[in-house]
């Protein structure tokens, strides 16, 4: 049959044009505008003067940018791998259950994920508040000195990472469960016929076959946690915001508190590049690891 390629291209174009229009309007255009903005001294709203690379060069010597950058890195280290690990362990546990019991346990682990961040903040503030937090009364009973968890730099990031894992691991558990169910039962049957131990079974069968899901979960987590804002913002209200800064928080501060749209855009561009670089690196690393297996 003769194919009218021109016609087909035309039809294809017509079919994808709504997507292209929306994508262009809501992603490409704002991104270009943001990069443009980052070279000006614009306030939050309205145009500004062209200042070249000024907004970028001054980031190098800025204390707040420094804090924000390292805090973000620290938070990612505290949440991505541990979060993935916790989710995998829970998923392995849940997958051993069956029927209603499994549904119930899964629901319990998934429950925090459906909470809005403000509720998560309230829950944990009530638990860990220095004067009235429930945990502090437990500390008193055990004779441990009370710790102002969200007001010290030592405990702030670990605590926020813990809360984040508690809050978001439900979704990763679901992904892992789906991955586990995709592994054919025959492989396990064959292995048990060979008298394989449980650990070997995990190391030789589950872990390699689950690898694509693990790679997916870490990548999702990585991108998500690089963009951390809500929890840090809420937990540091009134506390020590400038010591707890993360990159998105710093963008917020520059744009909405200091009214410096141009400088905020420069940080946003830097974060954008970091996310791109880190995700590509992560993806390559995962592929490399897969090939070595």
């Amino acid at each position, binding site marked *: 049959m003769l194919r009218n390629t021109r016609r087909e291209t035309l039809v294809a174009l017509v079919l994808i044009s709504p997507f292209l229009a929306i994508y262009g309007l809501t992603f490409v255009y704002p991104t270009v505008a943001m990069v443009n903005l980052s070279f000006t001294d614009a306030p*939050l*709203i309205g145009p500004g003067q062209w200042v070249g690379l000024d907004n970028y060069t001054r980031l190098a010597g800025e204390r707040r940018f420094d804090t924000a950058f390292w805090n973000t890195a620290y938070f990612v280290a505290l949440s991505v791998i541990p979060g993935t690990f916790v989710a995998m362990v829970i998923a392995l546990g849940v997958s051993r259950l069956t029927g209603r019991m499994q549904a119930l346990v899964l629901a319990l682990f998934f429950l925090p994920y459906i909470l809005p961040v403000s509720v998560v903040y309230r829950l944990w503030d009530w638990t860990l508040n220095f*004067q*009235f937090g429930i945990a502090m009364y437990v500390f008193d009973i055990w004779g441990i000195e009370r710790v*102002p968890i969200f007001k010290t730099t030592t405990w702030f990031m670990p605590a926020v990472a813990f809360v984040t894992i508690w809050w978001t691991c439900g979704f990763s558990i679901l992904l892992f469960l789906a991955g586990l169910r995709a592994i054919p039962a025959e492989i396990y049957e064959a292995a048990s016929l060979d008298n394989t131990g449980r650990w070997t079974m995990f190391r030789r069968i589950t872990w390699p076959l689950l690898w694509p899901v693990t790679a997916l979960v870490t990548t999702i987590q990585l991108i998500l946690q690089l963009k951390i804002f809500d929890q840090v913002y809420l937990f540091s209200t009134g506390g020590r*915001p400038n*010591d707890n800064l993360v990159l998105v928080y710093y963008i917020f501060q520059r744009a909405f508190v200091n009214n410096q749209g141009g400088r905020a855009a420069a940080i946003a561009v830097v974060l954008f590049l970091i996310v791109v670089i880190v995700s590509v690196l992560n993806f390559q690393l995962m592929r490399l690891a897969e090939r070595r297996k």
Partner: protein
Amino acid sequence: MTNYKVTGSVMLLAGFMSTAAQAEVVVEWWDFLGGGDGVRMKQLIDEFNAEHAGDITIQATTLEWGVPFYTKVQTSVAVGEAPDIMTYHASRIPLAVSQNVLSEITADDWATMGLGEGDFASATWDAVTIDGAQYAVPLDTHPIVLYYNKELLSAAGVLTDDGVPMGMDSLEGFTETMRALQANGVKFPLGSVTADGNFMFRTIYSLVGQQGGELISDGEFLTGDNAEKLTNALAVLQDWTNEGLQSTYTDYPATVALFTSGEAAMMINGVWEVPTMTDLNAAGNLFEWGAVELPMIFDQRATYADSHSFAIPAGDMDPETRAATLEVMSWMLKNSLFWATAGHIPAYGPVTSSAEYAAMEPNATYSPLTANMIFDPKSPLAGVAGPIFDVMSTYFVPTLNGEMDPAEAVEEIIIELNDM
């Protein structure tokens, strides 16, 4: 032809007149009053609407206080969706003017409202004035005050016969009062919002003011001995922490709870908590309490205050709506005696000099502090929830809780302020 035109215009004119006669002018109103004062403001709005039925209706929306409110105002002005009237902190006006968010209140406007400079305290009038022009109509001033539990103070023997705390005129005297309370078994003589540096800015700024210090002089932060004055202020508060005289790592709600539950005998907080105390006391759930001007810790009296004012957003506005908005502002000020039950000190002079106001407690006890009020420095960087707040908070919290040396904190603060 001509005839037709004339008839047309007459009909058009008639049409206009009838709409003017029938339609109510709707005044879109935004505020950030979410607490006990918000309840009282709603009552005032209802009264206004009832009194102006058929002419003007206020359509009020309450939004989240702080950065969210001011960001929304800014974006709404930019796209022409701003309200007709909004509450505004006087301390935020310098920033607002630099962002072109506010419409000037002209001399004609003041005349229309029947208000003028003479009706306000000079510090308050000055707070809404930028380069000789006014950008808002002050509704109140809301300073911080010292709340105290009369029963606990009396039990510790530190309540005067007039029913106010002893030792209010010196650092030594006030510290003695707190020590007496501590010796008498009070857990926290002073409940302080030590977990919230934003809030403590008010207290610390007052103490800097009590030494005649300034935060910004000639556009520079903490010049000359002002850095030392801030250090002194922080040192006093840190000493209280080290002696166990004030609560540590306490956030705002916890501080109020410590005071109302009797675990803290005194508390430095805004006058906006007056309704909380009044309502609790009326319900029989609170001890006898009082509120006075802050103690004089250094050599002169000074108390931080801000002002809730009414502002009109920049942008086109039809004359009818503007007239209605002016009427709203004028009415609110002239009826602001009721607003005083929210703790705030009405800005409109004729109200505060009235006999009814003089009989109101505890307002009458702390009202004399109006003479010693200091407002935020006039800078786009200052003001509630402004850029300075985050810097201060970051170093106030560790210092107030005894983890950072005051002099070191001030050094860091200066570096960060200059990094903005």
